[in-house]
């Protein structure tokens, strides 16, 4: 289903957002590259009504004067959810958006039903990882399969502007001085997705969150780099759909779609 661009006037400024699909509401918080439509998002829109606010300052939008940190960005997302969605919803946060989603879960737990964190930034990575400043090097680390990535349709100036906004939100280092000590308060059912080839957000991040968030689930998506939903759209969709549908019980094989682990066997 196509994503339509809409606008919301908030006291802090205008907020652009994309919306698509029908069904239970799903808040999608985009990565540092800005908003773009992926195959899994399209597929999810067949069962969920997806709301994707554009972070102020990204993709050519204006920044909001009093929103200058990841924590304040999460407050803004909560205001957006309150005005536009109006009830508790599932949340997917991807990378930079995962960082925002973590703050949202910490500060506004009533907003979130299920939380999916796709290679989230903002928490300790054991000194590893990071986003290269060179665009070609960054792209090499973002995608294990560049040919599967969505075509680059945004102007170069817009992509450079997105990159500058990381500084605006104090996010250039991909780490948050305060957030790590707060994530243990997250009570929402949480799925943490990590790509096995991710060199930007390393496994240490996933382990840290799994350890800190009681009852959370950590899943590695094989043969995916940082943008999991691009490198492995089917695996991503299988995991996320199962988790959003069944919550903690997604770890039980219901025999409908998951392949058997048994050689010579079928489900």
């Amino acid at each position: 289903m196509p994503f339509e661009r809409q606008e919301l006037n908030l006291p802090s400024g205008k907020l652009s957002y994309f919306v698509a699909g029908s069904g239970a509401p799903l808040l999608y918080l985009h990565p540092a590259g800005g908003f773009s439509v992926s195959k899994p998002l399209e597929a999810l829109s067949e069962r969920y009504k997806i709301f994707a606010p554009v972070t102020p300052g990204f993709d050519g939008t204006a920044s909001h004067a009093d929103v200058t940190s990841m924590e304040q960005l999460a407050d803004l997302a909560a205001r957006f959810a309150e005005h536009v969605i109006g009830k508790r919803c599932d949340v997917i946060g991807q990378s930079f958006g995962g960082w925002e989603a973590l703050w949202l879960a910490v500060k506004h737990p009533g907003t979130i039903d299920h939380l999916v964190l796709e290679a989230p930034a903002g928490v300790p990575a054991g000194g590893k990882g990071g986003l290269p400043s060179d665009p070609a090097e960054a792209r090499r680390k973002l995608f294990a399969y560049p040919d599967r990535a969505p075509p680059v349709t945004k102007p170069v100036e817009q992509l450079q502007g997105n990159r500058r906004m990381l500084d605006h939100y104090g996010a250039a280092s991909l780490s948050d001085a305060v957030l790590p000590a707060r994530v243990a308060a997250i009570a929402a059912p949480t799925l943490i997705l990590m790509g096995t080839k991710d060199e930007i957000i390393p496994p240490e991040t996933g382990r840290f969150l799994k350890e800190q968030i009681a009852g959370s689930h950590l899943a590695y998506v094989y043969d995916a780099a940082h943008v999991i939903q691009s490198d492995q759209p089917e695996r991503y969709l299988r995991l996320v759909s199962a988790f959003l549908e069944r919550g903690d019980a997604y770890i039980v094989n219901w025999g409908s779609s998951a392949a058997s682990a048994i050689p010579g066997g079928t489900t």
Partner: protein
Amino acid sequence: MKFNFFHLMPWTDYPREPTEWPVSNKEFEPERGRQLYADYIDCMAYAEQCGFDGIGCNEHHFSPYGLMSNPNLIGAALVHRTKRVNLAMLGNLVPLLNPVRVAEEYSMLDVMSGGRVIAGMMRGIPHEYIAYNVPPSDSRERLREAVALILKAWTEPEPFGWEGQFYQFPSVSIWPRPYQKPHPRLLMSGTNEESVEFVAQHKAKLGIVLIADLALARANIDLYYKVARAHGWEPVPEDILIGHHTCIADSDEEAREHMRKALDYFHHILMRPQRSAQELVIKKTRYYQREGSSDKFQARLATLRARSLEEQIEAGSVYCGSPETVAAQMRRVHKALGHGTEQLTMKVGNMPDKVVRRGMELFRDRVQPALKDL
């Protein structure tokens, strides 16, 4: 009466009550693990010298509950440490595994041991299905097909193909074939009507553990005989194996003190993390297909957990006391159930190994001789 010595190979030092299953393995210490394996295998082999007729191994995954994720490896370690005892593999969780591999490994053990294998064909407890990502709703039918395939693999002299619902193998001819003719005796678990009927239909030995209610166990045994007869065979008492947590010490007081601590660790540390995962499987799938079976399963575990040691002894769930006390307890349960194989789990939770070994010797010297007439 035949006696088996059963071992869960528990991790004995888990520092807190775990709430999540699978249990994080960062508390596992490799050197401690090496020592536990060495001690446990020594202890299991020692059972032969203490007069036991069999040694029981089993399979569990992803928690300190047991370090035996593949019981066949422990069976292999015991083959050359023992000469006489049965090696009761109780067993492989067949629906989770490749049935041809199960047929091959049981055959290897049977040949290596000169025909001492009892082949457990277990369905497993509900949460184990999460470990190997197998649909719990298919568990019964997977077990049925896998057992049929394993029996075929053991007995078919020519290479054969298998095109089943769950398993497809174009050509099978296992080497070695089993030592026993036509094959090792099967043993299956039967703790509810659904499973007891399944066991009897397969002419397998019946295993019942963690008894909460002697009358209920007796009803299952009666059903076993009834269904077996309907399928044209007559079980003997030895075909019925009843498992008990057991502590035998020099005095009743000493035994009860050890058992209380050990059961506390067993129920609150080792069993604790499985509860939430079991609920997920039981409530969200058709693991138990017959109405009421899932409620009974959870009620049985909750009952055992809530009872005092004295209540568990009275209910026939555990044996605990001096040799004379335990012999009397065993005699009472035998009178109620009429079984011919008693399986003792003496390493209960974190029971100290020296207490276990003392109990094994007291069993040999004063319990078994007192029960010669059974």
